[in-house]
C-alpha cells in the first residue's frame, strides 16, 4: 500500500488504520470502454494502460516500453489515438475509450485486422494491436504518408514492409 504524505499524516492524527486511509487516496472515475460504461474508484497514479489490463482485464492492449516510445499501448480516446501508458486513467474522466477488443463486430473482423492477416503484417504479434489501432486512426485522419504517420509504432521483428502493405491496401480500397 502506498499513501501520499498528506493521507499518511491524516491517518496518524486520526489513528486510522492504513487500509482505511487508503480509501481516501482513491478518486472516482467514469468512462466508457468499447461501448461499456464503467464507474470505478482508483488511485490517481494508475495509467489508462494499467486500468485496461489490470482492472478491466482487457489485455489486448500491450505494455512495451511503458514510456511512450514504442506505441504497443495505442488506444483511441474520444476517437483520437494516444499512448495509454502516458495517460493517467483519471484524466480520461467522461471519455470514450476504444481498444483492439472493440474493433471487430462479433465474428466479423475490422478491415484493418483482415488486411494484417492477408499481408502477414506481423511476426511475434506483440506490437500488432497497437499497430492496428494506430492504422485505423491514421485512415480516419486522412494521412497520406503511411510510414511517417506510423512512426510512433515500433516493430522489433521488423515486419514493417508487410505492415505498410496492409495499411496501404485498406487505404486504397476505402470508399
Amino acid at each position: 500500500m502506498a499513501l501520499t504524505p498528506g493521507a499518511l499524516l491524516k491517518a496518524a492524527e486520526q489513528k486510522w488504520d492504513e487500509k482505511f486511509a487508503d480509501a481516501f487516496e482513491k478518486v472516482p472515475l467514469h468512462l466508457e470502454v468499447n461501448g461499456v460504461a464503467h464507474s470505478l474508484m482508483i488511485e490517481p497514479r494508475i495509467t489508462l494502460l494499467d486500468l485496461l489490463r489490470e482492472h478491466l482485464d482487457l489485455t489486448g492492449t500491450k505494455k512495451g516500453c511503458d514510456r511512450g516510445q514504442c506505441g504497443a499501448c495505442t488506444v483511441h480516446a474520444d476517437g483520437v489515438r494516444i499512448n495509454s501508458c502516458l495517460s493517467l486513467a483519471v484524466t480520461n474522466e467522461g471519455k470514450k475509450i476504444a481498444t483492439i477488443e472493440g474493433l471487430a463486430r462479433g465474428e466479423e473482423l475490422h478491415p484493418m485486422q483482415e488486411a494484417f492477416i492477408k499481408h502477414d503484417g506481423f511476426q511475434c504479434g506483440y506490437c500488432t494491436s497497437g499497430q492496428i489501432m494506430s492504422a485505423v486512426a491514421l485512415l480516419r485522419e486522412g494521412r497520406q504518408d503511411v510510414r511517417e504517420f506510423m512512426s510512433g509504432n515500433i516493430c522489433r521483428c521488423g515486419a514493417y514492409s508487410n505492415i505498410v502493405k496492409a495499411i496501404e491496401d485498406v487505404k486504397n480500397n476505402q470508399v
Partner: protein
Amino acid sequence: MNPFSYARPTETGTAIKTQAKESQAFFLAGGTNLIDLMKMGVVNPSTLIDINRLPLKGIEPHAGGLRLGALATNSEVADHPAVLKDYPLLSLAFNAGASPQLRNMATVGGNLMQRTRCSYFFDLTMPCNKREPGSGCGAIDGINRMHALFGASDKCIAVNPSDMSVALAALDATVRVRGGAGERAIPFHEFHRLPGDQPELDNTLRKGELITAVDLPPAVFTKNVYYLKVRDRTSYAFALVSVAAALDLDTAGRIRDVRLAMGGVAHKPWRLYKAEDFLKHKAATAENFRAAAAIAMEGAKAYRYNQFKLRLAPNTILEALTKAAGTNTPS
C-alpha cells in the same frame, strides 16, 4: 510511480493558487513528458493539478495574428487551417516532433515546459546539476554526442529538445502567462534560459505562474519556409541538429526579411541573429547562404563526441535555406 494528491480545477485562478502554495505541486496537461519523468523518479510531485478542464484550448485570431491556447494539442495546431496557411513553418516543426500519438496528447504549454532529453538527467545513478543542483555534470566528460554547441556552461551542456519552440523562436512568438499577481507577456527569446550557474531552471516562469497561450504575430513568412531536422533515424527521434528557416523574398528573389533558428544545439532554441542580419537585402544564393551558415557557427564549442555537429550544423542551415528558397540543392 510514487503516490501523489490529485486535483482537477475548472477555473484558472484556482489552479494557480493550488500550485503556488505547494513546492512540489505540478500542473498536468498532456502528461507525455511529466508522467514519463515521474515513472523514472526524476520528478516526484506531491500534487498533480490536472489543468485539462481549464478553458485554454482555443486557436483564435488575435491582434492581426493567431493565439494558440496553452491546452491546444500539438496535432490540433499542426493541422489547423490558419496555421497551415499563415504559419506553415510551425506545422512543419510540429510534424517533425514525436509521434502522431504523442502529438495528439502533448499541448502547446507542455511543449514549452518540456525537459531536456540528456541521458544523464534521466539516469538517477549519474550526477546531474539540472536534476540535483551541485551534484555535477555527467555529460561534460561523458557520452555527449547529443549535446550543446552554444551557450553551455561548466554546470550543464544539455539541449532543449522541442521542435515547436525552434519555430516559435523564429516566428517571434510571445508566451502569455498568468500568476497570482496577474498576467504578463514574455517575448519568446526570454522564455527559455541558458544554464549558467542554475541549470535546474529551464525557463523564466515564476512559481505559481501558468502558461495560458502563445501569441503569433501577424503572418509574414507564409511561403518560403522549411524545417529541417537531422536525426539518427528517419522519423520519431530527437534532433541532432534542426533548423527553422523562413524567407520573405521580393519578386527579384532578394531577401526582404529572414528568420533562422536552430534546435539541438543549445539549452534554448538558438536564434541566428547575426546570420539573419547578413542575409537581409541580399540575393537568395547558395553563396550567401553558405556565408550565413559560417557566421552562424561563430563561437561554437564542441565536446568529445559531438564534434560532428560542427560540420553538420552549417550544412543543415545551408540545406534548410535552400529548401526554403525553393531552389535546387546547392552545388
